[in-house]
């Protein structure tokens, strides 16, 4: 029996194929049960998202197991197995472990470091658990994978920097302001992107929100949607005086925010920074505004440039994460190998200990009223002999299991010491 993972992801299969195999929970439940009932597969977890359809499992022959699972999956959609087979990959043993860890840690994602995948994998695991298709092997694989994912998240910056324009704007605001709670946001215009950026700011605690729009009813509507206050468009300058973050997304062809407007309110702000997020094209904020002190002005291209830099930073961090994952794979395999031989070691120890106790008891009985020191000495002597004898075989068992051939050695030890039948 060996660990394997088989499936397709965003790199190996086009979306047209992936979307057909992305199944809902009920169907997955059904398939999980059928697959295990069919025999040949001891444990199974199916991860099915829009970017990957994978089965993690324990089987005697992974190739057959893969065929069985995908036959069931395809059957649900009336697809021909042969048509998806070309998109499938199979990893076994070490590679399977490594793959599971990389997926959970979001290193195999289309957008490296995106946080959703971990939740999706956890859901898939919970689903399989509820179907009772998770055994000890997959249980330890997935719990370890979740721990690795958490470690990658805390020890590297792989998921840290924003990769969307609107989140990049939030991140920039946090580099200017010491926290966003209680910061005043002014939203000028009613574009979708502007609303999204405003929402992100609100989620970070920004408050209050003012909305200005040429159409008063639209301003009211947007203000209601964001739990903010509408301000008349011709009172923009007044609103600027109190704002910390200004998002502009109007369809105007002339700048809405001019340098003289901003310069006029700067003095009264006493150095409070003013951050313009201009996502309109053509731009709503006059270019010369950014030359003013304490004013930071990012247009859509600037934000994209920040996103690009963030992506580079993520890739750099992903390299570090890969090293971390490889180390964890090694640790996991060593533990797994130990688990293989530990029952043998325990029964070997028990066997020798019972022999020792039996012999010590006989000797003690013969000694009669020997002084306690003598009895202690006999105890110590016999224990020492047992431990010395055990040392070499235990070491050998551990070594051999880590080298991948523990099974033959455990069998040998069982034979040699008459440890009973192996489970």
């Amino acid at each position, binding site marked *: 029996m060996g660990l394997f993972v088989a499936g397709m992801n965003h790199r190996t299969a086009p979306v047209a194929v992936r979307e057909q195999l992305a199944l809902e929970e009920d169907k997955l439940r059904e398939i999980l049960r059928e697959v295990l009932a069919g025999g040949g597969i001891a444990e199974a977890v199916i991860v099915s998202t829009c970017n990957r359809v994978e089965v993690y499992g324990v089987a005697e022959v992974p190739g057959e197991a893969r065929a069985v699972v995908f036959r069931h999956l395809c059957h649900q959609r009336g697809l021909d197995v042969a048509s998806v087979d070309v998109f499938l990959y199979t990893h076994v043993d070490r590679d399977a472990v490594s793959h599971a860890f990389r997926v959970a840690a979001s290193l195999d994602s289309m957008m490296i470091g995106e946080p959703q995948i971990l939740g999706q994998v956890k859901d898939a695991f919970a689903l399989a658990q509820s179907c009772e298709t998770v055994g000890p092997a997959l249980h330890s694989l997935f719990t370890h994978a979740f721990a690795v994912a958490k470690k990658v998240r805390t*020890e590297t*910056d792989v998921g840290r*920097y924003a990769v969307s324009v609107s989140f990049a704007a939030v991140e*920039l605001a*946090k*580099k*200017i*302001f*010491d*926290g966003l709670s209680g910061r005043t946001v002014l939203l000028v215009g009613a574009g979708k992107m502007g609303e999204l950026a405003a929402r992100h700011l609100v989620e970070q605690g920004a408050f209050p929100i003012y909305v200005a729009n040429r159409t008063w009813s639209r301003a009211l509507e947007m203000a209601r949607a964001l739990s903010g206050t509408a301000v008349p468009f011709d009172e923009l300058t007044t609103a600027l005086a109190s704002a910390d973050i200004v998002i502009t997304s109007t369809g105007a062809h002339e700048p809405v925010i001019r340098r003289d407007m901003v310069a006029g309110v700067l003095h009264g702000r*006493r*150095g409070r*920074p003013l951050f313009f997020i201009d996502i309109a094209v053509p731009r709503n904020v006059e270019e010369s505004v*950014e030359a003013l*002190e*304490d004013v*930071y002005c*990012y247009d859509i291209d*600037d934000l994209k*440039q*920040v996103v690009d*830099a*963030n992506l580079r*930073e993520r890739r750099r961090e992903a390299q*570090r994460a890969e090293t971390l994952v490889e180390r964890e794979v090694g640790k996991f395999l060593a533990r797994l190998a130990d688990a293989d031989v530990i029952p043998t070691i325990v029964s070997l120890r028990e066997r020798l200990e019972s022999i020792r106790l039996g012999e010590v008891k006989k000797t003690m009985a013969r000694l009669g009223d020997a002084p306690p020191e003598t009895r202690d000495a006999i105890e110590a002597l016999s224990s020492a002999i047992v431990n010395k004898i055990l040392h070499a075989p235990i070491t050998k068992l551990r070594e051999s299991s880590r080298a991948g051939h523990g099974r033959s050695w455990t069998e040998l030890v069982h034979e040699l010491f008459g440890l009973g039948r192996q489970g």
Partner: protein
Amino acid sequence: MISPTFFTLAVIGYVCATGLALAYLVQRQDLIHRLGSVATLGGWVCHSLALVIRGVEMGRPPLASLPEAVSVAVWVVVLLEMWAERHYGVKVLGAFVLPVAVMLSMSAVGRPLEGPDIDRALSGAWLWVHIGLALIGIAAFVLNFAGAVMYLLQERALKAKRPGTFYYRLPSLETLDRLTYRTLALGFPFLTTGLLLGALWARRVWGSIFAFDPLALFSFVAWAIYAATLAGRAAAGWHGRRAAYFAIIGFAALVLTLGAGFLLPGRHGS
């Protein structure tokens, strides 16, 4: 004498901590930061021991000569750095403060530890208080300087719109500006009181405030710069870039003060 050994260990600790802090700036890895913190703390503990031993050996506070005083200033700087790093959550602070601490330590290395003979009659509690207060002030200004440098780097990164190492590693402009303001507000009263005591004492003993002492002259210039910055901040709403430039100019004046103390003959010894 045991104290030179501990002094050496302290400097080694600070040098290691500086290297690690700079490495952490480039490669954000928690292990590097932790090692750096250990090296800083280790260096500082050795430094404390060295100062205590020296004080006991000499039977007076280890503040009688300029190298000694600089050493104590470094001790306070490192203490403040450890505190501010936690308090402001600026993990890269060490990269900006520790190099200055190491340079200050190095400036004192190889100089005779014994200062000019301080007239027994002149020395007394006032002298130690004068030196001690001035040193705490100077230590706060080292952090003030570091805060200003970080502010300017982050501000430039944000204005240039090209995120680089500093953009990612440094905290927000507001945090940095607050750090700069707080350290100024902390250092200034200490420096003022320290200088005032020195001036009063000088007038009583030598009959003149400056008494042809270059260190005293330069320190007055530095004080004036900091006084102007503080006044500007409190009254005129100075902040950000302008306040940061002033912090750097003030610190330059302090460095000149120290240089004057080391290189030119005067009451503070050379």
